[in-house]
């Protein structure tokens, strides 16, 4: 699975990296972010682009799997 580590990056970098990864990926993409609002932004971006997003909290960060 393609992984995007966007922990600690300022807005809108996590979203830009997510968009880039989704454009180039065939399968699911895992995005790791550290802030709750970034988790939500990534989930919303996935939904807006017709994809499913499942989030889990792990070690104080959020893993969002988009497929």
């Amino acid at each position: 699975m393609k992984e995007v580590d966007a922990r600690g990056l300022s807005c809108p970098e996590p979203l830009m990296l997510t968009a880039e990864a989704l454009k180039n990926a065939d399968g699911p993409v895992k995005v790791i972010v550290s802030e709750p609002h970034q988790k939500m932004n990534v989930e919303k971006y996935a939904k807006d682009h017709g994809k499913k997003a499942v989030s889990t909290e792990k070690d104080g960060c959020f893993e969002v799997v988009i497929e």
Partner: protein
Amino acid sequence: MNFNLSDSKKKLALAGVVCGLVAAVLAYFGNPANMAICIACFIRDTAGALGLHQAAVVQYARPEIIGIVIGAFAISVATKEYRSTAGSSPMIRFVLGMVIMIGSLVFLGCPLRMVIRMSAGDLNAWVALIGFILGVSTGAIALKNGFSLGRAHETQKESGAVLPVLMAGILVLLLCTSLLKFSESGPGSMHAPIIVSLIGGLVFGAFAQKSRMCFAGSIRDIVLMRNFDLITVIGGLFVVMLIYNIATGNFTPAFDTPGVVAHSEHLWNILGMYAVGFAAVLAGGCPLRQLVLAGQGSSDSAVTVAGMLVAAALCHNFGLASSGTALDAETGELVAGAVTPAGKVACVICIVVCFIIAFTNKRESAK
């Protein structure tokens, strides 16, 4: 406690309406009419109150600033969004904070005040909007080219609470001592009662935190991702202030309205807000967003706020701040507001600094 204001456009617009109402109430109760709540002006007034500059007409520890930081802090703790972080190029952010303040004081207002001025019919603010959009767009181009200030990391959780505690300290000084300076005339002397300002700030900070309100971010998201979520918040605020201004007779569509702390030097209105928009995108948010992020634990944003505070003092110590169009008290003649020569030089330097920062700091993967 779990409530979220950023998952639908309706809620975002509602958050904007609430913040607009706060601004209207503050203006109604005595804040300068079309300043209502201006982050740059109010940080500048606070710098004056602390004696960092000696411009007697702009010295007052604005409880709105204190309230916004503490409001964002409290709501982020309550909703488990508080995270103490630091380490994303803090001193570059300090410089960006300085640029934001200098650009704002050349134009005479932060992006929030630009929107409030627009809602009062001030055509100079509409001109400045062109510069702001261009500045944000330049920042967006830098982002597309791989600009990044690097990652922030988790720090001791006390670190993120320092700015909120310092703000509480200023409030104690304001309420319990006579150490702070107070303007006896000019914009600094015009203010709502402390309790109204403080509550207004707390509400504004809390709603801004939950809605992620950001003036630079709203335009950046449109430019970069055709996303209209954040602009919805600004739209809500604008509409409320527009109605308030029309209802109270403060809506004057003109360039040279005296007494509203604005000038009509179009080029410098554009360049001032160009610098602000550019720097705000590089710093990840407008002045308001920096206060809110600092409240929710970002030491990097707290450093940006410190940069704004220091630059505010420098602006008045070095004569960089513009003057507003006013009526001469004796002759009754209109005296046009102006940008100072030093302010023009500083503004150009700020833009050059933004370009250097924008195109020398790259994401690891983009190097």
